[in-house]
């Protein structure tokens, strides 16, 4: 027996009733002074139920004795719903109403889990499959566009020498390669998708042997062969798409936060890519019968540059040089190969050296 209020839909008068729960129905009983008690039987098939929270429930009958019953009693709410749900099934919404913030919190955690899985595993995998489907000509177009927009000065004579030097090597990539020397103090080199390899004179003048230069080119060409830039582009784009779907109505603050977090994370993509380029570069060196130690010396050269600016590994794009030296050494040990001399490359490297060494 539970106590509740009954409303007859005719006047706004609260009529106190006692309620009994049966397996298929409710029995409402209201005692009237000096008269026999009036009983109402509501079948579960003729009622609609509104749960407000765990303490309050409203049951409306659409049958012959139309009316509304309201009960403020957590025990009633629970008992009634257990029996009623048996015939109706529970809903997620009801769970949210009765579980309060806990349900919200748990579903929030589940959704965040799905999003994280999506970001770290599913989307990168999908992006990679998409890149595999894209024709190589796509890389070329992107590379061309990027090159035109960067407007770098070109050292034509130096570029010719570098192209001749590279032509002495066999490259394991379907892309047609274009080698360019850019006059600048920056000690760096980079590769654009589609096979555009750019080397700054600042780095060129630091190199002491032809093997170092060959290692540098092998590393950059490996980026092109593995289509790293296009892969990164696709991953970033898929992340942005996922985000705009999810956060479209959460507010700008969150998405800005996320965009920054994402850029830090995409640096580690780059580090993985760098390692892959180093290892593939070594393979290219071996197949060209060049001394693999050239890669090591290149790393040591880079280490000297690194020491000028200390960057913690956490935000650095390249794996820290010590780290790189370690796995390069391991790879050389694992794949010993003989080196042959190549006079033509020696000569070309000398010409380059004369041109840039001060």
């Amino acid at each position, binding site marked *: 027996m539970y106590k509740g*209020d009954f409303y007859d839909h*005719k006047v706004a008068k609260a009529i106190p009733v006692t309620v009994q729960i049966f397996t298929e129905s409710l029995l409402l009983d209201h005692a009237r002074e000096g008269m026999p008690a009036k009983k109402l039987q509501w079948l579960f098939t003729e009622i609609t139920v*509104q749960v*407000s*929270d765990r303490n309050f429930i409203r049951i409306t009958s659409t049958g012959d004795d139309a009316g509304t019953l309201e009960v403020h009693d957590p025990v009633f709410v629970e008992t009634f719903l257990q029996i009623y749900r048996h015939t109706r099934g529970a809903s997620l919404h009801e769970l949210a*109403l009765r579980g309060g*913030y*806990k349900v919200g919190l748990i579903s929030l955690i589940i959704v965040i889990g799905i999003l994280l899985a999506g970001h770290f595993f599913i989307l990168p995998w999908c992006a990679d499959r998409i890149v595999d489907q894209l024709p190589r000509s796509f890389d070329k177009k992107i590379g061309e566009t990027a090159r035109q927009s960067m407007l770098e000065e070109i050292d034509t004579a130096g570029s010719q020498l570098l192209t001749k030097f590279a032509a002495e090597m066999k490259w394991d990539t379907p892309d047609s390669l274009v080698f360019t020397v850019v006059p600048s103090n920056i000690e760096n080199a980079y590769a654009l998708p589609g096979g555009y390899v750019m080397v700054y004179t600042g780095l060129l003048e630091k190199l002491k042997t032809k093997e170092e230069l060959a290692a540098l080119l092998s590393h950059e060409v490996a980026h092109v062969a593995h289509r790293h830039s296009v892969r990164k582009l696709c991953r970033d784009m898929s992340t942005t798409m996922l985000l705009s779907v999810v956060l479209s109505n959460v507010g700008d603050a969150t998405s800005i936060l996320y965009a920054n977090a994402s850029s830090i994370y995409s640096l580690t993509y780059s580090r993985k890519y760098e390692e892959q380029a180093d290892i593939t570069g070594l393979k290219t060196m071996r197949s060209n019968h060049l001394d693999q130690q050239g890669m090591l010396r290149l790393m040591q050269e880079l280490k000297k540059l690194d020491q000028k600016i200390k960057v913690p590994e956490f935000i650095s794009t390249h794996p820290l040089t010590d780290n790189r030296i370690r796995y390069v050494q391991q790879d050389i040990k694992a794949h010993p190969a003989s080196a042959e001399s190549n006079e033509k490359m020696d000569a070309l490297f000398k010409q380059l050296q004369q041109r840039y060494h001060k």
Partner: protein
Amino acid sequence: MEQQYSPSGTVTSRPVLTFHGDGGTYFGILFLNGLLTMITLGLYYPWAKAKKLQYLYSSTEMEGSRFAWSGTGKEMFKGFLKAMGIFLALIIAVQVLAYFKLPLIGGLLYLAFLLLVVPVAIHGASRYHWSRTSWRGIRFGYRGDRNEFVKLFIKEMFLTLITIGIYSSWAAINIRNYLLGNIRFGSGEFRYQGNGTDYFFINLKGYFLSVLTLGIYSFWWQAEIFSYYIDNLRLVQGEKTFRLRSTATGSNFAGLLIVNALIFIFTLGIGYAWIQTRTVQFLLSHVEIEGDVDLSELAQTEEEYRNATGEDMADMLDLSII
């Protein structure tokens, strides 16, 4: 409920409005709604809205009984389809006219539609919304006449337009008088007696003092507007009347709004559910009702109205009426 006998022999009572909703549960509802709406690409929206309103209404109590919202997702979804149909028909008509090189007529049709659709949407939304609101099984209702309201609305908009907005205070109050004055609470009738001139001066004073005090006065301005809305509202049943009065002061509003802003900023918007429940709680607890109406004598007079087209049109136009 406090009761006392006034000298004339009638019973004076002071029913109290309380809000039982808590931010946590409300957050759960909003979150689930958002999730399902996202998964269904927006189709869940009418059901989400029904669940939200059900919770907010059922958490509001007067004299020991809670309000009820009986609108359903299905009704609102049908309304949504009809409203979509109307908008689509308009777009097609404008396109066809443009195709036949009659873009001017298309443009005029578009303007006429916009001028008509807003009052029609407000009217439909009021009818649906109030009909689906009840207390102790007694339905509210809106008795306004559509044509009359459209005429009033167009007239007020026209006057606002030709006075470059100065008339807007009078327009707002005239429209409010009409909308609120036609609300029924069973056999009880709401009356709103606002006056455009008073409202104009409240806004004029509020505006200048807010500028002079670098915005600080805006809380007091807000409190004055709120009390102007509440104090002019009455519920009349036969000879009996309930008067409403706001007890919220500017400093109360400052407390509410500043804390709301802080919650919003520090939770990156996730605290929105708590902001809403706090606000509803604040508003309801600052309304004082006093008079001799016997609530238990309110009788069922309003019919059910299940057409939610106006409600959905109002949503699409982003009008917030209630």
